[in-house]
């Protein structure tokens, strides 16, 4: 599948189809008009032909003459545009407009009364539309057969059609502009939901939403549902992996205990160095196992818990203030009532305690704590006006496992971060102009 723009593709398709449709319409209307003009001309010729027939007389010498010449001036002006000609055996009468030219009527034998229409050469290089009829003259005119023809300049007909086309062209162009404009509008309106799918997925990646949702046009809904199904699948995969990690930790607990017991027996056998090495390794393993078990315990408890954030914050602030009675910091708390997060009070206090203590230690005058709600999450910000941390150092502080060789500051933040992530949240350190801002995102309690 090639890339490129859908909009461009749709636009080109619509511009092409509009152009083809309008060119066909322009051509077709021109043809219709031409045949209409010809029909009207034939109607007029038929009237003129009747007039010619009425005007035929016979003079004293028995010759056919045109008694009452039709009134139309075009018949009498040389090359006037309207012509007549009658032929009997041995006699030919012509309108003055034909001047020195005679119509060369084709030698088709017409039935009496039958009407034929031809295009014949006229005087000069003009083409004439000619209507011809065979009649039997009445006995007072000799009772002889006669051919009568009237013609008009075909150039006039063509000119009318040309003029019609010239008049039609601006309208066609306006229509083309309108259709192309409508096509552009359609494409933009029609494709807008696609951009909103993109924005939803962006929000999911940013953690502001968990699902794409179903409120899309039916053509896009399958895509959105598939993405949502994929997300759900991933979540359950992660959940399963966590369970397995918990099970693994649980399964390792007893063997580790046995290993430590075995190490004791090795020590009794006099191999103190070996026992020491085994015990230290087993201890490290047990710490990892305990951490994982702890994480699993907190996570399973958190899902069902509901803890008031405002209460937790005020309790933590009070404890931290009491711990440093000599401190004269001013505390600014702004946490809305009724903001409940999915975490147990104990874990929440541990997280907030670590971060708030850190802020109080570094602040020079003020510690601010405020919270707001954003798309199913509570965002708690703890700000101090201390010396702050260099951006490069923030990364080192927050690195997973980086706590082993860091100072007390790092330790507290790293624990807080790990606990927060166990609760399905996140901790961000944001350097300020003066001091540091720690932003804790925690999922709101459901129900």
């Amino acid at each position, binding site marked *: 599948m090639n890339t490129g723009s859908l909009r461009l593709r749709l636009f080109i398709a619509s511009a092409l189809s509009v152009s083809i449709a309008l060119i066909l319409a322009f051509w077709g209307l021109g043809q219709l008009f031409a045949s209409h003009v010809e029909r009207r001309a034939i109607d007029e010729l038929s009237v003129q032909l009747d007039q010619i027939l009425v005007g035929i007389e016979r003079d004293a010498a028995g010759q056919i003459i045109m008694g009452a010449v039709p009134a139309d001036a075009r018949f009498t002006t040389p090359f006037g545009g309207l012509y007549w000609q009658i032929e009997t055996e041995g006699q030919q009468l012509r309108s003055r407009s034909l001047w*020195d030219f005679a119509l060369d009527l084709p030698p088709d034998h017409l039935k009496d009364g039958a009407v034929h229409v031809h295009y014949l050469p006229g005087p000069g290089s003009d083409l004439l539309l000619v209507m011809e009829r065979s009649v039997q003259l009445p006995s007072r005119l000799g009772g002889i057969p006669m051919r009568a023809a009237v013609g008009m300049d075909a150039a006039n007909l063509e000119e009318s059609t040309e003029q019609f086309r010239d008049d039609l062209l601006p309208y066609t162009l306006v229509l083309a502009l309108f259709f192309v404009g409508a096509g552009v509008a359609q494409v933009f309106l029609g494709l807008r939901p696609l951009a909103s799918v993109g924005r939803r997925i962006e929000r999911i990646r940013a953690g502001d939403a968990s699902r794409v949702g179903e409120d899309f046009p039916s053509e896009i809904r399958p895509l959105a549902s598939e993405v949502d199904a994929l997300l759900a699948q991933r979540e359950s995969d992660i959940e399963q992996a966590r369970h397995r990690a918990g099970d693994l930790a649980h399964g390792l607990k007893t063997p580790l205990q046995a290993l430590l017991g075995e190490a004791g027996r090795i020590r009794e056998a006099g191999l103190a160095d070996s026992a020491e090495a085994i015990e230290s390794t087993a201890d490290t393993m047990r710490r990892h196992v305990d951490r994982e078990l702890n994480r699993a315990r907190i996570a399973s408890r958190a899902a069902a818990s509901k803890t008031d954030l405002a209460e937790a914050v005020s309790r933590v602030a009070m404890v931290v203030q009491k711990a440093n009675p000599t401190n004269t910091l001013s505390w600014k708390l702004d946490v809305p009532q009724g903001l409940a997060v999915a975490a147990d009070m104990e874990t929440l206090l541990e997280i907030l305690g670590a971060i708030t203590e850190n802020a109080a230690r570094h602040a020079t005058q003020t510690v601010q704590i405020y919270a707001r709600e954003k798309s199913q999450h509570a965002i708690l910000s703890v700000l101090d006006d201390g010396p702050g941390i260099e951006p490069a150092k923030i990364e080192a502080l927050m690195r997973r496992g980086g706590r082993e060789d860091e100072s007390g500051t790092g330790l507290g933040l790293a624990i807080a971060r790990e606990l927060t992530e166990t609760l399905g949240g996140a901790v961000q350190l944001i350097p300020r102009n003066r001091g540091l801002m720690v932003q804790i995102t925690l999922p709101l309690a459901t129900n």
Partner: protein
Amino acid sequence: MKHVLIILICALVSPALASGDHDDARDAVRQQQVIPLADIIPGILLEFDARLLEAEFEREHGIYVYELELITGSGRMIEVMVDAATGEILEVEQEGRYERDD
């Protein structure tokens, strides 16, 4: 000879008889005595930037002439006498003075 006679009779009897002059013109053309009017007209209309209002076919001083009445694009009416045998312009009559472009 017969046609010359007819023309003579026409000229004598009714010199201003317009209804028959086109038949005379046709006879003269068929005897190749004159150039068909349709061959002369386009050049003249172009030269005077004019439209043909009326034409007459006459015999004057022994030669056939076309007497053409034209209206120019600027609205002037002029009469042009053309030698029907050669197509040469013999005379241009008009109100005021006529200036040729060449």
